[in-house]
């Protein structure tokens, strides 16, 4: 009898734990929601595998003018290179639903990356919006920085100037690089949360 109750309790706890990441919005200073995904090259991975390394999640949509602002100017690639050179895992995620702007096939995604000279550690297509909803990603770009312990350290905009005009990149504060610097210097991240700006993520309606 008591064994039955224990089992039921365990099952309930397990269920709640499974359900939690789905319903809890990611919070700064809390563990980043875990997910399993297959990248465009067919490699399956789980976020928690990267424990011990910093991870950056970037929501993208190559046709969004704000994404074009940062890729057209080379700003995103430069940020990406600075990060990956330091051993940071960079995951680009496309949550555009089928039929919506920015939705691509793996081959198209590869072409876009080659043309833009982008080198993320992994690129994920998330047309169902599962990972997007998990992180409540709302814009492209929308950036998340996760520390070595798997704790969400930064969420928000790529930089401080919410204009689509690439001329504003010069003089803007790159929040992602600033967060990485803070993490490396073992300081608390000074700006841990900002209002993301850009096009809305093209989830299925």
């Amino acid at each position, binding site marked *: 009898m008591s064994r039955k109750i224990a089992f039921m309790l365990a099952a309930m706890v397990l269920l709640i734990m499974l359900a939690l990441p789905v319903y809890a919005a990611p919070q700064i200073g809390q563990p980043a929601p875990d997910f399993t995904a297959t990248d465009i090259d067919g490699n399956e991975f789980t976020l928690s595998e990267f424990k011990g390394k910093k991870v950056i999640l970037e929501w993208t949509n190559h046709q969004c*003018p704000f994404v074009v602002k940062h890729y057209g100017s080379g700003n995103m690639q430069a940020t990406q290179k600075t990060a990956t050179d330091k051993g940071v895992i960079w995951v680009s995620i496309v949550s555009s639903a089928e039929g919506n702007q920015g939705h691509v096939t793996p081959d198209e995604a590869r072409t876009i990356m080659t043309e833009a000279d982008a080198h993320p550690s992994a690129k994920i297509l998330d047309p169902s919006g599962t990972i997007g909803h998990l992180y409540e990603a709302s814009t492209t770009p929308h950036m998340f920085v996760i520390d070595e312990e798997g704790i969400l350290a930064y969420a928000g905009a790529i930089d401080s*100037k*919410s204009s689509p005009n690439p*001329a504003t990149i010069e003089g803007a504060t790159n929040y992602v690089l600033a967060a990485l610097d803070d993490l490396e210097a073992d300081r608390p991240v000074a700006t841990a*949360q900002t209002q993301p700006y850009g*096009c*809305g*993520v093209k989830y299925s309606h």
Partner: protein
Amino acid sequence: MRFIRILLLMMFALMLFQGASAQEGDQESKPDQYVKIRVLPERNIVKPGDEILIGIEQSIYPQWHTYWRNPGDSGAEPRVEWDMPDGFAIGNIHWPTPHKIPYGPLMNFGYSDNAILLQKLTIPETLPDGPITLTATVEILVCKDICIPESGEYTITLNDKSIPPEDNSAYLAAAQAHLPVPVPWHASYEVDGQDVVLKVQSDNISFDSIKPEGFEFFPLEWGLIDNPTPSKTTLYQNEIVMAQGRGERSLNEIKATEIILAFTNSENQRQAVSFIASHTTSTQGTGFIGAKNLKPVASTSITKALLFALLGGLILNLMPCVFPVLSIKALSLAKSAEKDPGHAKLSGLAYTAGVMLSFIAIAAALIGLKSAGAGIGWGFQLQDPLVVAALAYLLFIIGLNLTGVFEIRGHFGNFGDKLTQGDGLAGSFFTGVLATLVATPCTAPFMAAAIGYALIQPAYVSLSIFAALGLGLALPYLALSFVPALQQILPKPGAWMNIFRQFLAFPMFASAMWLVWVLSQQTDSMGLLHILIGLVMLAFGFWLLNHSPKKKSARSLVQILAALTFLSAVFLLPFNSKENETPRIESLSLGETYSPEKLASVLLTDDPVFVEMTAAWCITCKVNHAVAIDIDSTRKLFTDKNIHYLVGDWTNYDEEITDFLNSYGRNGVPIYVYYGPRDIVTGKRTAPKLLPQVLTPSIVERELNKL
């Protein structure tokens, strides 16, 4: 530079072209622009000094939308930059009431069909003849399923006789009528479980006749609410309560925000008001903008703080209220030490114990009061008119005693005879207590800031600092009692001492006078008159006692009369002082009165803000104000930089000001905080800057120009 700008503009245009060509598959016939912009002056003929409205009219393609200042979950606010001749000034954008625009699981705040942004243009006093052109560069994001940034330059020409006069005043006035109406409603928000609850109160509006269905609220700050969740509205007689899912930001970061509240009125029209709402919590109101500045002091700086406290205590010996008591005590020592050096040492120790224990007792009482939740700081002893008046009495009585109006023949506390004779360890101890007591009005004005700092440290640090302060105060006398060589330096006692003693009454009277002046800032003219009468009564009473006749019956009568005058002096003390009396500071002609709401509302503007916290009894504050702030160059700087200048008066107890001080890790005045202007591009302010506690014009100028 110009070339680079053109190049960037071309790149931008090219990008737009790419952006547009990316949707070639669209079935709709695409317009050149999804949002057509017109920049309309109220009129195109202006006179010097005029103020006219400029409308930036957006005609938005069907089903597409543009954004409000807070765009919601995605998007970006439009940007307008003006290129104008010198002397022209353009005001902030006035935004029409936004709409909620759902987009999939997201919610945006913005406009569809038509929207007119309004700006106020100020024409300079000197206006050249002939046409004037002003150019607005408008960058605007327009979205439907996809987003397209559009931009253009729009020119308006004023006073050009070759073009017909234009009058858009009726059109823009209509647009103005659609702006949210600023209202002085009292509003606050707090977290309630998964929701943020906004409470709005107004005494003169009945809300219960309005339909709750049409209520929508739009906070200017992002992340306060979960944008897509619908809000639940409950209307009461004079109160609106709205609950909506909580946003992703911690409310500690959002101390106040402007809120637009839209509703459907009884004529079925959409109407909106705007007001400032501030964050309330049930916990202590210590948090405010900059609360993170509060850090416990490091151990290295504790040593430094103790040294400074010791030095401060030493300096206290020279204060007009302390110096007379001590010098007499010191002179008496020379006499007694000759007879009995051992007794002199003991007397020195007793005095030191008296001083240090009094200081520790005050510190302990303060810490106790603070932990019990009383929002007090150093200088509190002068915030209560009763204490100020009592101290004025005390100093005045000491002064009377020194001049020889009376001598007390009692057990202790005879400042004249007993002190000069220097006998009795209890006497020495209580001289120490008295020295501390008379020193308190002097510590507040000069050391309020330093002691205030000590008080926000952990208890053991505060107590040590106060003990060091006491030791510093006692040190000269202690040294004197232990080192015979020092005693030799003192002049030989003699008849001159009596004259010197009388002379020392004048610093005492001066201190008492100063306290009466402080009191005059805290009470009305009647209260001031009461205290002055009280002082006369005291003098009269002591004079009576000193001249009591020999005959027993007559003596009793005189003593009763004296007792009555003393009693009347006590009754004249300001026992029931009015709290929160309106501050009366001379500097108010220059600045506006501080309140948290006022600060929150000026921080919402783009202009810089300067906050000064002062008190009538704070000498440092007065000197800083006179030397560095209320001078032509600083006043000009304030005007030139369009600085909002707020002054808070801490002369009387004020919890809101105490909260402000605490939020910057301070516990005393003065404090000067400068909030730099809002960055036009990012829409953010840099972190507020604390100015030093001793100001010079150049420090003010340097700090204000830095941001």
